[in-house]
């Protein structure tokens, strides 16, 4: 039997990682929903923002949580740049071409990092890296807790923007029906640009947060990319709330699953969850059925 403390500890850790998954997957699902593109380089944007946080701390002692305010706009513009020069030309191209293009960007960025920073695993040692908070018998790392709070807030804030602002409505309109959105006078090209950049900006927040307790290496993006894909299917493609709850669910599955099976096998549990969802409710937890 598993002790309750161990179980709760796993739940807590699962929710923390889950909040990060939720944040990274939100950006991905938005891009999928509006642009209908699978952005394979999504993970590399995350990786770059993690390196940015790392070097801002190493070089200028800027705390990663504060660095977020700097890195978010940087990633936003980086996303805009990438969209304008590389994604925009292929928006009307066949799906597989688009995927291959983002694969090319991914390979480029990953190896750029490799060339600049080497393959060494790096971790940040902050003054409070080892401090923990106590919640009854459960202990939570300070950086973990802060990351959780910020992830949730940003994701919820993003959701509020989507639901209640003109920009958010335009984005949702463009996702549902491009032609109708144009007829309503929405500048769809601009919406595409903003959506992609916002997706990148999400990673500009997630990166520094992760860097406070996760290792930084050129290939770290791939790990989160694959998990984000699963979350996106689970939540329903293009479904923001789905990505949120899906992220938390996957975080929990991985973490709680690790108690019952060897830690490195827990992704298999994620896959089992994926198969079950695909068999029972394939449009995702929150998605809508066709036909």
């Amino acid at each position: 039997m598993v002790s309750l403390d161990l179980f709760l500890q796993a739940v807590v850790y699962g929710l923390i990682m889950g909040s990060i998954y939720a944040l990274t997957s939100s950006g991905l699902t938005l891009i999928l929903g509006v642009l209908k593109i699978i952005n394979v380089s999504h993970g590399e944007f995350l990786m770059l923002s993690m390196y940015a946080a790392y070097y801002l701390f190493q070089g200028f002692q800027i705390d990663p949580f504060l660095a977020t305010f700097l890195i978010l706009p940087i990633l936003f513009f980086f996303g805009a740049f990438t969209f304008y020069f590389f994604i925009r030309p292929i928006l009307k191209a066949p799906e597989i071409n688009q995927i291959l293009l983002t694969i090319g960007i991914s390979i480029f960025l990953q190896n750029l990092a490799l060339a600049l920073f080497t393959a060494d695993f790096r971790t940040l040692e902050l003054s409070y890296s080892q401090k923990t908070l106590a919640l009854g018998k459960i202990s939570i790392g300070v950086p973990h807790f802060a990351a959780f709070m910020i992830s949730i807030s940003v994701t919820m804030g993003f959701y509020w923007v989507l639901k209640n602002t003109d920009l958010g409505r335009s984005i949702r309109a463009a996702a549902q029906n491009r032609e109708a959105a144009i007829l309503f006078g929405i500048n769809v090209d601009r919406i595409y640009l903003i959506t992609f950049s916002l997706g990148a900006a999400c990673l500009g927040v997630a990166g520094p947060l992760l860097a406070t307790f996760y290792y930084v290496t050129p290939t770290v993006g791939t790990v989160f990319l694959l998990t984000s894909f699963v979350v996106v299917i689970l939540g329903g493609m293009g479904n923001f709330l789905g990505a949120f709850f899906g992220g938390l669910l996957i975080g929990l599955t991985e973490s709680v699953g690790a108690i019952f099976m060897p830690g490195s096998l827990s992704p298999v549990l994620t896959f089992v969850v994926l198969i079950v969802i695909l068999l029972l409710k394939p449009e995702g937890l929150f998605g809508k059925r066709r036909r």
Partner: protein
Amino acid sequence: MMGRGNWKFFLGLSGALLLLILLPLTFKISSYSLHIFIMVLYFSYLSSAWNLLGGFAGQHSIGHSAFVGLGAYTSTFLFLQIGLNPWIGMVLGAILASLAGLFIGFLSFHYRLRGLYFVLVTIAFAEILAILFSNIRFLGGASGLVVPLKEESLWLFQFRSKVPYYYIILTMLALNIFFCYWVRWTRLGYYLMAIRENEDAARAMGIRVMDYKLLATALSAFLSALGGTFYAQYTYFIDPLTVFGFGLSIEILIYPIVGGVGTVLGPVIGTFVLYPFAELIRTLLGARTAGIHLMVYGAILVAIMILAPRGIVGLFGKRFSPKKEK
């Protein structure tokens, strides 16, 4: 005019085949160069297998390494454990891969989900196999499996020199190409293209879309797995990260798209052009700083997608597009 029954096409193809057959016999080729040739043929083979599903039927899998790995592991494992002949293991592995393909195909196609779902499911599936095989010690774990060195024999699919491997993969490639060519110009090929172009219109014409998608998946998986066994027998070593890797899945689809997706020879042309090129930049740039040559590779991919979206075959004019009648 790479069209049906076109004698120029067959003549050109036969000529190329003849050249490839005579190559190792006529010239003194270094072991390294021979290895490159074998890899080019190997990836041409895998790319053609992918193209059946991704190019003809338009169902894009970015997890084809799952099938390659299943083939490699089945034959190697059975060879190790019960001494089963690798050729037989090869067929068994291919059957297993087909069943796996049918499984994930069913999951993805059953509810008429958008094509993107299939892409993501295939990615997840290959990843899961990689993790599973890395963690199950019985199957070799993360350190993989080593193919036992018994004796040089065709029967045991083992040779000391690289030359027999060259001819085996050349034969496999040739058969694969002929198969793809045959499929392309029969009802199966037309139905797959119809499904690719417009699924609803295909349904309205009585095409059993689900059945054909599953068939294409099973065939593609079967062929890919055969390639996996070849790889295992050639390199004598397989591990989960390589044969089930995301990198392999990506590489398999780069060649057909760059060459010309949906055409019979596109995958081969793409591999013949891109693989040696990648090797070249690796030797030129790879030595000093790790990663530079791959940066160039990534940039080239981006450039090709923007500048030559129909691939190399498309660049040479509409005459070579098989989508038009001769």
